[in-house]
């Protein structure tokens, strides 16, 4: 693949967790490339290293060996401040448990990435409301997370992940807490709103019902990528 068309390039990435009495190798020489405009799914059994890999890709965990480049930037060798700024500008997160701040309403939750990027609160909340309207929650902007259904909470989380127009969206089991119909709605939304030619989506999932949304699926086992296959013929 042409390096300029790559969102993510991982080469021989190794991550070992030291738990005191034993060392656990979570990533054992992972090689992976994700292109711009691509929706890549990471699948595999529990403990195979999927979550560790997206943590490294998202810049919230440092690998012990190997190279990981996101939009041409080597995350491992960035200063802490540069990495924070890089994450704030370029990475959007969607979590399995939504991870919305329970005391903030939907608009306030969505506005957080903008505020972190230095946008004034009023402007941030205005943009957040616009993003919530895009994900179909224009009528629930003042609702607290506890007042929303699981599907609505995940839509708020998606709005939060996209509001600052990041170029890489990292999702961890975004549909596992949702019923089939809501899961499909969320995936459709993610693909529609998030995926552009200058962006990429990485989704960790166990949910075979959403595999059809992927451009490619990377299957992991025991800290390796064992197979990468396309879904579009």
């Amino acid at each position: 693949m042409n390096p300029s068309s790559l969102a993510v390039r991982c080469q021989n990435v190794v991550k070992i967790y030291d738990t005191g009495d034993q060392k656990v190798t979570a990533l054992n020489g992972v090689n992976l490339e994700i292109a711009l405009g691509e929706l890549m799914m990471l699948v595999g059994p529990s403990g195979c290293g999927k979550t560790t890999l997206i943590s490294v890709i998202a810049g919230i965990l440092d690998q012990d060996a190997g190279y990981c480049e996101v939009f041409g930037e080597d995350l491992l060798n960035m200063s802490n401040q540069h990495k924070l700024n890089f994450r704030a500008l370029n990475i959007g997160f969607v979590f399995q448990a939504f991870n919305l701040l329970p005391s903030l309403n939907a608009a306030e939750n969505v506005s957080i990435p903008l505020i972190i990027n230095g946008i004034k609160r009023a402007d941030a909340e205005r943009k957040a409301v616009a993003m919530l309207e895009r994900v179909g929650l224009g009528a629930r902007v003042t609702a607290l997370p506890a007042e929303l259904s699981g599907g609505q909470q995940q839509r708020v989380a998606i709005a939060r992940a996209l509001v600052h127009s990041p170029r890489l969206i990292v999702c961890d089991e975004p549909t596992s807490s949702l019923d089939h119909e809501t899961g499909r709605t969320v995936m459709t939304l993610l693909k529609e709103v998030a995926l552009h030619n200058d962006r990429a989506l990485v989704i960790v999932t166990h949910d075979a019902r959403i595999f059809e949304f992927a451009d490619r699926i990377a299957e992991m086992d025991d800290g390796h990528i064992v197979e990468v296959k396309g879904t579009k013929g």
Partner: protein
Amino acid sequence: MNHIAIKMLMGDRGKYLGIVMGLTFASLIMTQQPAIFLGLMARSYSFISDVGLPDIWVMDSKVQFVDDIKPLQDTELYRVRGISGVEWAMPMYKGLLKARLADGTFQTCNVVGLDDATLIGGPPVMLEGAVEDLRRSDGVIVDIDGAQDKLGKPSPTPGGKRIALRIGDSLELNDHRAIVVGIAKVTRTFQSQPVVYTTYSRAKSYAPKERKLLSFVLVKAKPGQDLSELARRIRATTGLAAYTREEFMSLTYEYFMHNTGIPINFGISVLLGFIVGAAIAGQTFYNSTLENLRQFGVLKAMGTSNWILLRMILLQAVLVGTIGYGLGVGLTAVFGYSMRHSILAFKFTWQLLLFSGAGISLICIFAALLSIIKVIRLEPAIVFKG
């Protein structure tokens, strides 16, 4: 990010109220107990501060505090009067005498005998009658608290409130008849005994016969005199102790500080208030941070720096600290105001505000530090853990 910090703090009402209540309790205890302590200690020297005119108090050199009376010979008065720089010197009797009340019971009173001619050293505020009325036959002035309570006449109904002594009523002091000619307002003394003012010569007649009955010589310095120097001259000339008013108050205060269990008792109360407040507020604050750890992790993953998270936690600590401190100090003020007419000693000074403010700040810093360490060490990758 400030509004996010505030909403995170107040999101869990129960915990938020727990932190504020812990700090309120600590602030209340750390302000109210020292205020009572200061009030009590101020009473130890209230008799000295009530006697306004004299600059120097002369007494036996072994006197340790104001109620530690070691009588002098009357001739000492004339020796003091002869010292250069003394404008005037007046005698004062101060002693405990038993008063026989109308119902036959006895009450110990603090009897103060004033110079017959000048009546210097009299009560600071007269509520009824005048100090000059002491010149009337058998005249005494009684303090209002004593007149209404311990020296009052028994109620006609069993268990009823005592009837206050009034001008014209009589009582017996050491088998001598005394007629109330005035009611005065004096600052409560440490023992809270009734205070009875009379003339020096009459006080001597009330007191048991002794060779020496002069308790203090009250001295006024001539204008322009250095009081410390004059006190030194009096000491050198007479061999007696001579203190300026402030020195005598300090001597009395120090005696109570070093020779009674009062400071240690109140100190323990204040320390307990601090520890309990720190334990409740500190632990609840820390627990609240622990419960919000995933939220802090989310913020960290999204690019929030440790410095901003530190500021958020400090803001939370300052907010609960200010509210808890304000409530505690406010409750102390309400307590003091509601007790202003009671026997309770209470002295609320600005230094106490600083003291309890410093205590609450320490608790908040302690709680915030624990939380900050936890959050700064937090790995943002926690957000992907189930």
